[in-house]
């Protein structure tokens, strides 16, 4: 009986959301009186895997099969299922990412497990019941869900738990071979195309996001958004109409039909705050709204606001951030 944590790696490093998941898994293991083992997927360096000890992981399984570098649904499912069986994992924790949710849903059938995605807190396990809190109704509500299966799979929403860093602690990295065959790679990607990310920060992983709406008037003004984002170390995002008219790429569109983000800081510039936009951003910890219309609905969801013209306000904000040094 143990907790198995799936950590996603990219370019040798463990993704930030997986550090959160590792922390979640270790805290859950402590709660259940057991230990947390991780299985690494993607391109990982042994040094970065050993550092998962800082999050409370004791052992990391790593399969060096080179074809596992990119996401392959069948192969990842088999790899994780094999690890779960070997470790007799009763709970599997993964990130609520495109990889985590996709593999998690296949695994739930293969391992006959109960699955909860979009989970925002550690489970309540008193009295033998296992209850998780998850986001529902596009961020407009939460639900407490009882997982009744003997095995459970939990996909943790990004930025809902803070990654712990206990300096100096290391995890044992153990070679693992899931004996994958060519057939397991039949749905391997033919090609992987990475898009340009402003400042190299992935929007779904970002702790800070600067986002622009139709109030930015045109793509030629986006340098104002990018300058502030760069100064803050933030990712950039936009509202749906902005990507619909190709001012910005589709992968930056946040909201009900776009990406859901939950950063610590979301700065909305020239965005009205339509309910569908809020659905993708309302679980951000602190929301800042800059809009020249004092009646813009976004102010109701905001923690801080400036009623003003983005063209005047944004350069002042960027200068103030730079002045912080």
């Amino acid at each position: 009986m143990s907790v198995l944590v799936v950590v996603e790696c990219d370019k040798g490093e463990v993704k930030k959301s997986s550090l959160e998941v590792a922390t979640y898994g270790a805290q859950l293991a402590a709660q259940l009186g057991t230990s947390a083992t991780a299985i690494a997927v993607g391109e990982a360096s042994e040094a970065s895997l050993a550092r998962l000890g800082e999050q409370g992981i004791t052992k990391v399984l790593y399969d060096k099969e080179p074809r596992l570098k990119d996401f392959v649904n069948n192969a990842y499912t088999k790899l994780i299922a094999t690890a779960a069986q070997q470790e007799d994992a009763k709970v599997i924790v993964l990130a609520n990412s495109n990889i985590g949710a996709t593999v998690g849903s296949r695994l739930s059938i293969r391992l006959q497990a109960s699955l909860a995605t979009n989970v925002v807190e550690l489970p309540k396990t008193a009295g033998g019941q296992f209850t998780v809190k998850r986001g529902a109704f596009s961020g407009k509500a939460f639900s407490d869900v009882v997982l009744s299966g003997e095995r459970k799979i939990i996909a943790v929403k990004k930025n809902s738990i803070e990654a712990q860093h206990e300096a100096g602690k290391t995890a044992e990295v153990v070679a693992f071979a899931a004996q994958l065959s060519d057939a397991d790679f039949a749905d391997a990607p033919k090609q992987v195309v990475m898009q340009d990310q402003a400042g190299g920060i992935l929007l779904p992983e970002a702790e800070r996001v600067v986002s622009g709406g139709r109030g930015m008037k045109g793509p030629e003004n986006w340098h104002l958004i990018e300058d502030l984002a760069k100064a803050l170390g933030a990712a950039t995002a936009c509202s749906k109409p902005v990507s619909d008219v190709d001012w910005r790429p589709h992968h930056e569109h946040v909201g009900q039909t776009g990406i859901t983000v939950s950063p610590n800081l979301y700065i909305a510039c020239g965005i009205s705050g339509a309910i569908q936009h809020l659905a993708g951003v309302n679980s951000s910890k602190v929301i800042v709204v800059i809009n020249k219309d004092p009646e813009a609905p976004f102010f109701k969801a905001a923690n801080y606001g400036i009623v003003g013209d983005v063209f005047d306000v944004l350069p002042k904000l960027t200068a103030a951030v730079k002045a912080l040094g």
Partner: protein
Amino acid sequence: MKFLVCISNVPDTTTKITFTPDNKEFNKAGVQFVINPWDEYALTRAIELKEAAGSGTVTVLNVGEADTEPNIRKALAIGADDAIRVNAAPKDAFFVAEQIAAIAKEGAYDVILMGKESIDYNGFQVHGMVGELLGIPTVAPAMKLDMSGNTATLEREIEGGKEIVSVNTPFVASCQQPMCEPRIPNMRGIMTARTKPLKVVAATGDAARTQVQEYALPPKKQGVKLIPAESAGDLIKLLRNEAKVI
């Protein structure tokens, strides 16, 4: 090519969410239900692919009680050929996936499409469960889908980019923007939808693996703190010293 498109019936995107007094159920009173916005991408793309091939069928499938029929008719009006309703209140993603897999197996569909997730439950689970139950590939979430014979080429969104994946039929894909421009029904579609077949079938079993115990609304926001535009820079100090986010 036989397409099966799964649609769910969800509260309109602008709905103010409330619950029954015991917080056990969503309060449906006065709420308008629509086809889940993500499912509209799946439906429209299936119709486009059928039209481009000049042959094939698009069947819509909903797991739901009789009150979902107006939206099933809407899907028929948009251009699906026929519909199946599994007569049951959806219990959880696993229950829904079992129903879809049973129908898909029986009808030997080539392509099973659905939206990325439903905007009420936000599970992002059903696609993978159906794929695994049927033992066929799943591509999720898919931003692009083209067919050439029995081979599909899809773009799958990954954090920071996309994967180009090709799979043979049968397969499952969960769809999202910018796959296509969802269609809205026209008058002719609405008229013909009335006569298209809508079959009602009983559910397969009643297994569920999760139970909602209680719903809750997020805590109310404390209200916005406004900073005058002239002293915009003060905001940055507040974000550092008060909110501690930079």
